[in-house]
């Protein structure tokens, strides 16, 4: 399934689509979670940037991740901002920062599916799934099925 640039711009009218992030959003529409990876040294580059912070290579390729990871951060919006009409409609929202199995500190901001806020624990093994949000496919995470091979990673700076 190919997705044109036009379609990315049309379906994400509120997102600042740029040369650096368009492949990520194209991937979301295809239900593929793409993170830039350095072709020269293998480092995962996130957020979407055009060079590798470790070796300064310009050869970074949006690459599909395994979808495995652990919950590093989580919170629940109990009370949306007073003038945030979209937030008011959405009500309580669960937000999680998932440390992806690919690299320490590679954390993707997402939400949960098939679990409640009360089920969340730090370092809980999770896996990628896809939900619909505002008529668009959106990545979400659910408890990892079966024997999880994602290892807890050491705290490490990016780059």
């Amino acid at each position, binding site marked *: 399934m190919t997705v044109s640039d036009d379609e990315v711009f049309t379906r994400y009218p509120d997102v600042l689509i740029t040369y650096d992030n368009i492949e990520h959003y194209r991937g979301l529409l295809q239900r593929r979670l793409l993170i830039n990876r350095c072709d020269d040294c293998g480092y995962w580059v996130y957020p979407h940037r055009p060079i590798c912070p470790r070796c300064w290579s310009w050869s970074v390729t949006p690459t599909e991740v395994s979808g495995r990871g652990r919950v590093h951060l989580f919170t629940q*919006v109990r009370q949306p901002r007073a003038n945030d009409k979209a937030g008011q409609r959405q009500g309580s929202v669960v937000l999680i920062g998932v440390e992806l199995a690919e690299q320490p500190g590679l954390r993707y901001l997402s939400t949960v599916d098939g679990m409640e806020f009360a089920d969340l624990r730090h370092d809980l093994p999770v896996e990628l799934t896809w939900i619909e949000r505002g008529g668009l496919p959106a990545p979400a995470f659910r408890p990892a099925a079966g024997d999880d091979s994602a290892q807890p990673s050491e705290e490490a700076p990016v780059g």
Partner: protein
Amino acid sequence: MARNPLRGQVAVVGVGSTPYLRDAKKTYLGLALEAAIAAIKDAGVDKSEINGIVGSGRDVFSVGDATYLAVQGALGIEKTTWVLNSWLGSCFVYAAQAVATGLCDTLLLVQAYRRGAEMSQSAAGDRFRQRQAEITGAGSWRNTDLAQRWYHNGEPYAAWMARYMHDYGVSKDVFGRIAVNNRSHAARNPNAAARTPITLDDYHASREIWTPMQLLDMDVPVDAGEALVLTTAERARDLPGQAVYIDAMSLGGTQIGEFYENGLGWGQFSPWRAMEGLWERTDLTVEDADLFYAYDGFTVNALAFTEAAGFCGLGEATDLFQSSWDKEQNILRLNGGRTLMSTNGGNLSQGRTGGAGYYSEAVRQLRGDCGERQAAGARTALIGAGSFYHDPAAVLLTAEAR
């Protein structure tokens, strides 16, 4: 030791603050002007002497804010040689830097804050505040890359509160003690917005906003303006009032260069980098700080600055705060009892003015102007102000030029 040619070369010679109110019925500009005129009068300089301005805002135009463009025109200052808009802790560093390098000689720093429409239902019902929010997009992350951002600026802080408690095996009391300390000080500050004393129980009972962050972890939105006048140490000697001097200062950049990325961990955020930069530039140490001002947009910010400053190690603030707790006054006494923290009540209780309220309070304390809440014999004030992610500053002020 790193170079520090500005030590003792830059002086704060004027300070002005508006009342901290829920509704001042003033614009950002009006608040800034009220504070600016007070600060300029306090300094005893003529407006024609001011040739540098740091305005309030995040970019050149910052619609509706008290920018240098708006302030210079409103005050009728004919010409300047250096101007910039800034906010949070970094605004003071830019101001002092401009004086130290000779880009200007006498500088006006203004900061204005208002109770935004995004901050409460009652504020959202005020047409002036609502219009400001509509025009400027305040309170929403419009036009951003949703995949990498949180909905509101408080959520990452809430999530880091939870991670901190998990990683260090501590309770929420460590945050609560900051809230109680600041409220106890605000009770003695006639210009604080929230002055009713609170206990740890009150803290724990407050409404949850972003789990586990509660209402009393968050700053109090107010309408307020703050202003300072800075000049050279040489010029300060000829002015009538008592000057306060900059010993050392630092900003603190990290690899999470954009707003609210999640790649770093506790001990790696901007407060640590800013404090490291400060201590590299002075022979004074954290034990020399008579007063400590830790930015408290959220309690977890102040906790980070406390650990970053070196009052204790990573994750050790729970023990520090327990052993530093003054049960009579419900305040923290650091450095073995002699160092008071956030004597104005901070953003949590005096009111939300970024780091600006702390700079003003530190100057007044070092001049001995704080009346009932004056800290006896305070000669050195340490300020840490700014986000985990952007605009952090560490500043050491002294009552004499060293």
